[in-house]
């Protein structure tokens, strides 16, 4: 394989990997606060894309994206308040099933609000055919947008959870809800807030990936499955790990395509997930001792 070809495979891996990574980060926020995985996260991604696409004819792109993020965040808040917030002592099975139900509802709502057709946002920079040349290989400039948003999200989230009072309060809720409540933290508000933030981040992801992946009402679940995989491989709750795992998975997939039929690409990704879950459920980038504190 020529070096140019190798670089081209790496770049195509980075393209799909960056999409996986940005979707994965959204899962981590709710997980960090509540310890639950939101199975409807993929639908937040879809909603963000769909809303921005509907708004873009009426306003400049940045405004459409911003508005889509706000609207999706509001949907996230409403969903949490309506379906989760008032439950007393919900069981983990119950939460899994509620978020699965929520994902079905959001998807069906999107089908009936819009329709079954495929849409996409315009490329943020350049057009469909613009590409950047790196060492003889090519990559779409949109990939840099996705990576940029990933990077910004990781930095901002770590600042938020590490430095701000609210962020620390959210983490406290996850570590020990009772102690957090005793310290005067309103746990319920923190959980709602985590849904708002992750819905907003999901929507932002939906907007930046839309030019690459296109958006339609059913696109949430496949993105979410890849997102889950990446979030788990990177270590749940660990956003830096998610980005690394996303890029890694993208690149592994790209090279797997180079040597075997593409039909097996998804089987490889899922096998990695199963292997990681079975033998190292803390994820690849978390030390075992830290992971030992978690429940699986």
């Amino acid at each position, binding site marked *: 394989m020529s070096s140019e070809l190798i670089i081209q495979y790496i770049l195509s891996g980075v393209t799909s990997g960056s999409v996986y990574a940005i979707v994965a980060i959204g899962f981590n926020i709710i997980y960090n606060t509540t310890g639950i995985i939101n199975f409807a996260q993929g639908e937040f991604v879809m909603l963000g894309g769909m809303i921005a696409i509907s708004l873009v004819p009426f306003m400049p792109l940045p405004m459409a994206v911003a508005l889509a993020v706000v609207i999706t965040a509001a949907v996230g808040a409403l969903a949490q308040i309506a379906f989760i917030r008032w439950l007393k002592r919900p069981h983990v099975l119950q939460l899994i099933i509620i978020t699965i139900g929520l994902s079905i509802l959001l998807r069906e709502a999107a089908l009936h609000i819009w329709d079954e057709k495929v849409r996409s946002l315009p490329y943020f920079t350049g057009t469909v055919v613009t590409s950047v040349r790196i060492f003889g290989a090519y990559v779409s400039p949109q990939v840099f947008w996705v990576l940029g948003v990933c990077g910004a999200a990781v930095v901002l989230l770590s600042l938020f959870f590490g430095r701000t009072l609210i962020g620390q309060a959210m983490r406290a809720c996850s570590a020990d809800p009772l102690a957090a409540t005793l310290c005067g933290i309103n746990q319920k508000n923190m959980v709602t807030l985590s849904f708002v933030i992750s819905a907003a981040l999901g929507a932002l992801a939906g907007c930046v990936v839309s030019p690459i992946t296109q958006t339609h009402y059913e696109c949430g679940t496949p993105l979410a499955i890849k997102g889950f995989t990446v979030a788990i491989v990177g270590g749940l709750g660990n956003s830096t790990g998610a980005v690394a795992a996303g890029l890694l998975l993208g690149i592994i997939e790209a090279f797997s395509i180079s040597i075997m039929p593409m*039909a097996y690409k998804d089987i490889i990704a899922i096998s990695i997930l199963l292997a990681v879950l079975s033998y190292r459920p803390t994820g690849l980038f978390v030390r075992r001792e830290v992971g030992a504190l978690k429940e699986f």
Partner: protein
Amino acid sequence: MFSRALVVVLAAVVGLVSCAQQEEPIKVGAIFSVTGPASFLGAPAARTAQMMVDSVNAAGGIAGRQVRLLLRDSVADPQRAISFARQLIEEEEVFAIIGPSTSGESMQLKSLCNDAQTILISCAAAETIVDPVAPYVFKTPQKDSDAVRRIYETMNDLGIQRIGVTASNTGFGAAGRAQLETLAPEYGIDIAIAEVYDRAATDLTAVVTKIRAENVEAVVNWSIEPAQSIIPRNMRQIAFDVPLFQSHGFGNIQYVREAGEAAEGIIFPAGRLLVADLLPDDHPQKEVLQKYKADYETRFNEEVSTFGGHAYDALALLFNAIEVAGGDREATRDALQNTTGLVGTAGIFNLSPTDHNGLDKDAFAMLTVRDGAFVLYEQE
């Protein structure tokens, strides 16, 4: 006196009976994937079917009877399609069933409808639906093999020999890939590489990279999904500049719009519906195509696609046969399989007891994309 009264009563009874017969509507079942993974096919087909039945009823019905459309959404799930087909056949005792739009569902219904002696006019592409011929099973989309032949002929003209093939993992993609592989030797085409991608694929840069490494002279992509606009985008993004051929699945202007500039120059076979306005005035299909296009676009406020056309053809064939045969089911089937010269959206149908599709490769025109619109490739 008495006999006159009897005549009057008899006449009244006969009148009532014939009146009742007249008023009883013809039930036509329709099974389409209106939502779900094959909604790209099923939704326009369902809309078209509703539109046609409405217009036929407004014009006084078929053979003096109104038509009632019983539409079921199968969500591309064969088990549901089977359940609905049994329901339509046994409970509603429908006259005929149109759809489904995927070959998987159609094949599951083939024996079912044939055993129940109910006409099934499938809107799916795979040739196995009518080969072997089942007496009661028909299909309206053009043959995959004819699409492949048109593509290969064009390649021969362009001197292209070594190609790469991509297809989605749907029934449509699999059937097309099989035909591409079968017919390649006949046209001296060498398929250097064939790859299958998931229908929900979101980025195909890696697979086009792999194909580029094979030094092919052209790429053929066979699918019905959004991937049809992702492939051209990704090819252009990695500066892979060989001609791209697509299947008749590309016959939906939305995919052109999604692919933007990258769609320019894509060559694909399709029915003439998409270029109705560009056809010469003496083209036999022009009138039918323009009318369907105008009706559909005014009513649903969206561009027509060839998939809706398959439902149009199914109903046009059925209505024509009922008109010819009267209300009898067996006679209708005979009339259906002896239909000749019926102008549909996919082409001109000439059926026979051994050919339950009735289209030949002239049903396809080679089209290409110029300035974001479909144009005839031959005119280029």
